[in-house]
């Protein structure tokens, strides 16, 4: 247990089955055109970085996970999220 301030990131992206035209355009028109054929796919999303006061990194992550569900930081009909503690 290390009470303190943690940096927690939430990454929101479209579900795999929901098309992501922004990612597709970046892939087709920038990355492949630029010659980076090793890149086989791109998904664009949204990143929220939150500073959270918590008792531990696990608590910080749990708080952000809970608020993401409670406040609909993402729309579960179309999006997935990843929540991770980065600092």
């Amino acid at each position, binding site marked *: 247990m290390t009470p303190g301030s943690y940096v927690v990131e939430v990454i929101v992206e479209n579900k795999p089955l929901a098309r992501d035209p922004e990612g597709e355009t970046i892939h087709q028109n920038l990355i492949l055109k630029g010659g980076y054929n090793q890149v086989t796919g791109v998904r664009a999303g949204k990143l929220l970085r939150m500073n959270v006061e918590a008792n531990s990194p696990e608590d910080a992550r749990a708080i952000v996970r809970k608020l993401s569900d409670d406040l609909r930081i993402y*729309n579960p009909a179309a999006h997935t999220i990843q929540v991770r503690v980065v600092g």
Partner: protein
Amino acid sequence: MVKVAVIQYPGSNCDLDALEILRGVVKAKTDLVWHKDLVHNDYDAYVLPGGFSYGDYLRAGAIAATSPSLRIVKEAAEGGKPVLGICNGFQILVEAGLLPGAVLRNSTLRFVCTWTRLKVETTRTPFTNGAEKGQVLEIPVAHNEGRYYLDRDQIPDLERNQQIVFRYVNEQKEATEDANPNGSIDNIAGICNQKGNVMGLMPHPERASLPEMSADNQNGGRVIFDSMMRTLRGPGA
């Protein structure tokens, strides 16, 4: 006397257009209500207008969906009152969970502002009961996030429950890719809840309710407001 509320959110910008059509064209007693002032379910119907509530931050409609006014709207919806969400209003209803699915960024990645043809898929709603099934209405869209999305395997349920109200079609009334301005799944332009009393659509019927405002001198959007008022006033009115 029947009373309608047009709810204003910070960033609503089609509120006055909706108000004008309701008051001036279909002659409904209508109040423009700031969302924080909507604390009682005193109205017979609610209209959530288009715009960019809260700057579309996070996701279009996501922040407005947490406004306490949505509690009143939910209460009204559960009581069977008509609730209409236009464009950003549709996005708010989806984000508030009154309608299923999500409204995502246009597949073209461009803001789209154009006239569309909408095929009426069901007349069971208070917003389409004055139209004919299969009728085509010409109504414009103007949005950046209008791509209706629901998992493909849930579309048959939506269809079976007659929750798909409008589809984008071409001149031959076919739901083609070319007729679809934003990449919506199955060309869906508007949907309703299971009961049918809550409807959202991306096109703007308030911009097509007067012949002089329409490219084709028609008033295709008016039937939506006329239907709502006929429902509220009763068929004999």
